[in-house]
């Protein structure tokens, strides 16, 4: 603990500032407000000069591969290995008898189809909408889950003590990956992308069942006195956008929140050691904060499962609302 305190004194900033910066670094993408300090994992220049002249927006729009993009690739490879390839193999089998991993997979698929999609969307459309809901579920589950595995933090420890790379080296690949075990779904842009798919899926679902014009007519109930519509129609249009917005915020904030809570509780060690300027205080706070962080990690495992379930359930409910209009 004393080393942490000493480092901060030599660096000049207070421990509290460093702790805050550390937490933000952990949960955010390869982010900085200063373009000179922007070190993506793989650097690509801007293709179309999208945001020339705005340093801040250059970072946002540049096509460089950042921490979260790399994690997206990792999630993709994992899903391909764990879901897509086994399922393809199983479908091409001569006898359709599931075994081993496929048994587990099949029970999950059956659960999603029978208790999420079918009651909300209706038996007639289950086969149409089960695939997209299943895709949501597996992607979110894997992306959430991989964020809980502190693989990059482990790599960072190896990097620091085995390969002797200093933490200040911004061009070292593992240092760029650090603060990782990044949760892709903790990034608002990723969840916004997922919610956009839901947004259009709702429209497609309504248009396929009722026709394009009728889908928009169905937004507000029929046969009310005309003054009611003055209030009702704007509310329904706002509601159309609020649904995916709430989906975005719920998933991203839940995944970010857990990481912030764990890190904040672990940071108490450094903060208290600095405050009372003694190593013993830091170690005794560790007796409290490490079990606490472990407990929250356990809670996070539940949150990971529940959030994947919630996103798929709400998507299914919204799609079902567009299909089965009861007014």
């Amino acid at each position, binding site marked *: 603990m004393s080393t942490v305190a000493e480092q901060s004194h030599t660096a000049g900033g207070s421990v509290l500032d460093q702790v805050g910066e550390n937490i*933000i670094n952990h949960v955010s993408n390869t982010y900085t407000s200063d373009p000179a300090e922007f070190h993506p994992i793989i650097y690509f220049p801007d293709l179309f000069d999208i945001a020339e002249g705005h340093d801040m927006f250059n970072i946002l729009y540049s096509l460089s591969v950042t921490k979260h993009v790399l994690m997206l690739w990792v999630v993709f490879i994992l899903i391909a290995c764990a879901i897509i390839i086994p399922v393809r193999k199983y479908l091409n089998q001569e006898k359709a008898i599931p075994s081993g991993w496929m048994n587990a997979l099949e029970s999950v698929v059956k659960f999603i189809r029978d208790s999420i999609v079918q*009651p909300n969307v209706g038996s007639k459309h289950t086969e149409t909408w089960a695939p997209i809901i299943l895709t949501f579920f597996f992607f979110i589950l894997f992306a959430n889950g991989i964020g809980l595995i502190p693989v990059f933090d482990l790599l960072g420890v190896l990097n620091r003590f085995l390969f002797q790379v200093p933490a200040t080296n911004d061009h070292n690949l593992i240092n760029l990956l650090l603060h990782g075990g990044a949760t892709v779904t903790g990034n608002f842009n990723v969840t916004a992308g997922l919610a956009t798919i839901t947004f259009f899926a709702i429209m497609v679902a309504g248009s396929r069942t009722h026709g394009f014009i009728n889908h928009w007519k169905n937004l507000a109930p029929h046969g009310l006195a005309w003054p009611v519509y003055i209030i009702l129609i704007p509310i329904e249009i706002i509601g159309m956008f609020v649904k995916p917005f*709430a*989906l975005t*915020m*719920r998933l991203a*904030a*839940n995944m970010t*929140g857990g990481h912030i809570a764990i890190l904040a509780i672990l940071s108490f060690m450094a903060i208290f050691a600095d405050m009372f300027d003694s190593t013993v205080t830091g170690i005794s706070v560790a007796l409290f904060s490490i079990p606490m962080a472990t407990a929250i990690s356990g809670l996070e495992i539940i949150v990971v499962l529940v959030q994947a379930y*919630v996103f798929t*359930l*709400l998507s299914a*409910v919204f799609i079902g609302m567009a299909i089965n209009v009861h007014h």
Partner: protein
Amino acid sequence: MENLHLFGVGLGLGLIVIGAGLGIGRLAAAAAEGIARQPEASDKITGAVNLPLFLLEGVAILGEVFALLIVLMK
């Protein structure tokens, strides 16, 4: 006085917790009562409670996000 926004955020977070806690508590109480009266309907009751529970959670989380934004953006 320059850190007054932190005071507001703390107060707001407390209010969020009160609101969400009350809402979830009422939902859980009603569900438990319903299941106690009619155990065979427990699946239906759980299904009916789930959706408003998650919507409620979404509102609380939104409040927390905005609290965080106030702290970060000042």
